């Protein structure tokens, strides 16, 4: 997936200021930045939900799966009914087989008949992602997937997402947690106030932070990263 010079304006405010991104098969890209940095706007443009005012997006052949920040599920339906509905809407030739596959993938086979509203936030997020995968996408876009999850649920989520990337799916996820981005993102894109500040590996980001905010180099990475943003004028 390639995006070049993306600009998005909401009235007078520029939410994205010429952001570019490139991600290859099996790559895990973390889009990181403080609240209001433009992460959701970037992902919604990559997903085709909103259009950029300037710039271009070149998607690979095949579907782009999109998993919104809040679970897009019918909470009064069961796990199985949700998966079956979206498999049917996707036009799968055998929606029941696809549902079984996703139940297996999410590890929720035993809880297939449970109403979604009764599941934990983590399990709801797993179904949310599974629905995004029903289109068998070449690229999966996850908008802050770990928000509201406890550490154990987060660990299971990232194990699941890493396995997807291991099977060749390009995963682009947004987060405002620097440690999560460093741990799971093969590449990191730093956004602040709609501006792209950094694009590279987690190690390269650490190096950039040390270089541009030396006074915070011996502090924890999150504090150093905040100092880095400050040095860059954000």
């Amino acid at each position: 997936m390639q995006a070049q010079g993306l600009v998005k304006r909401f009235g007078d405010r520029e939410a994205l200021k010429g952001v570019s991104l490139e991600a290859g098969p099996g790559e895990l890209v973390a889009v990181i930045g403080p609240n209001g940095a433009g992460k959701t706007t970037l992902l919604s443009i990559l997903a085709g939900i909103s259009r950029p005012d300037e710039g271009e997006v070149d998607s690979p052949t095949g579907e782009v799966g999109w998993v919104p920040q809040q679970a897009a599920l019918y909470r009064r339906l069961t796990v199985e009914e949700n998966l079956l509905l979206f498999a049917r809407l996707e036009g799968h030739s055998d929606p029941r087989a696809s549902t079984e596959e996703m139940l297996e993938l999410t590890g929720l086979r035993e809880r297939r008949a449970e109403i979604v509203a009764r599941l934990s936030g983590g399990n709801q997020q797993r179904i949310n992602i599974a629905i995004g995968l029903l289109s068998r996408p070449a690229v999966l876009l996850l908008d802050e997937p770990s928000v509201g999850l406890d550490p154990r649920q987060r660990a299971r989520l990232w194990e699941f997402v890493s396995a997807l990337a291991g099977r060749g799916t390009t995963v682009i996820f947004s987060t405002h947690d620097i440690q999560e981005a460093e741990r799971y993102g093969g590449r990191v894109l730093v956004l602040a106030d709609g501006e792209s500040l950094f694009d590279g590996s987690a190690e390269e980001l650490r190096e950039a932070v040390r270089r541009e905010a030396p006074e915070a180099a011996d502090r924890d990475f999150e504090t150093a990263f905040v100092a880095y943003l400050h040095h860059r004028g954000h």
Partner: protein
Amino acid sequence: MRGVRWLLLKDLQILRRSPLQAVLLVAYPILIAVLVGFAISRGPDDPRVAFLNEVPPETRINVGGQELPRANVKDQICERVECVFVDDREEAMSRVESGDVLAALILPADLVNKINSLSTLTPGVPEVEILVNEENAVKAELVDDRITTLLAEANLRIARRIGNEGGRYLGLIVDGGEFKLLGETIPILGLRTSARILEQVTPALPPSLRPSLEQVTEFANQARANLDVAKPLIDRLAQPIAVDKVVVGGKSPPLEIFAIAVATTLTLAFVVVLLVAGSLALEREENAFPRLTRGLVSSTGLLGEKVLLGMGVGLAVTLLMLAGMAIFVPLEWGRAWLWLIAIVASGAALGAAGAALGAAAREVRAVSLLAFMVTLPIAFLSLVPSGAVGPAVFDAIRYLPALFPFKPALEAITAALDEAGPGIGGPLLHLAILFLAYTALARLALRRFASV
């Protein structure tokens, strides 16, 4: 269409999974059908009124020394209200105070004497007494109206009898006849016979006397002619203004058909508008709208699915209601195809209006409140007849209901139920226009959903 089918199935699953909603959708039409059915098949009960007649039994109204036949005022009154006969004023007052009766009507002992005094040089004022408990304003007004009407009818009957007697006396003066007084029969010559006798005797008189006699004959003829004219005037005196009702427009259906149409339309409006608006808002509340419209189903398809859902459920609910009401009131089942057309067209327009409301709000609770706040006053305004409010207010509210599908839906369903009523074409055209307008409005509002 593939997507619409599965979304429709999903919405029905969600509906089924909400026991309260499902029970309401079935129980509500049955309850309304039974209530309306009972109300229109039983009719209102006569109000209970205490009746105390203190007039001595043999007293009669007397006109010019002649007693009139019994007017049976008591029977006339007791045909229209349920009379509870009481023995004295205290009992009447006690029953009114306790709420056992709505009012008490007391005919005092001197009532007939005072009526009789009307034809004397010292006329009195005949009065009846009414005791009313005004703790309930509506009830008090109802009793006031009913008793005032009954007394007006009694006055009219008495006046007619007096008028008839007056006319009979006038006939005696004009045409002659016999008049009974104190057991004796007195022959009355009458103006007509007097004039004829005078004309016959005039040739036998000396010429000098003839002009005077001819003047008397002329007077008798003129008096007869003028009194002939006066007779219908006396007849009209009892009821000077006659009512000639001419229906110039707005042919109204029978009351029971109108009641069924109102109940059906009101139910259809609430079920369809709330369901469509709520289920559309639910897509937003569940965050599913952007996911669905990313190629799984178009916005128009989603809109169509919601309207179809509303139409389907609305049709089932209203047909259930009509079947329930048919137990109480005979309905013309041969016109069932017209009912279907009216309900489906009404459901489509109401569904489109519900979709426009649903697209305008983000949450199910907010949209439910909005739908209720729009539907209820519009339904109320649609039922306000001309003349019930001031002309300025009526002019202000008459066009507002035309902008919402409730009124044309009511007209269409009434026309479908009432064989003798106006045609269904006009309301259907009105509904079609509103369907297109609200669909366009809903599509515009749905664009808001596209933004994340």
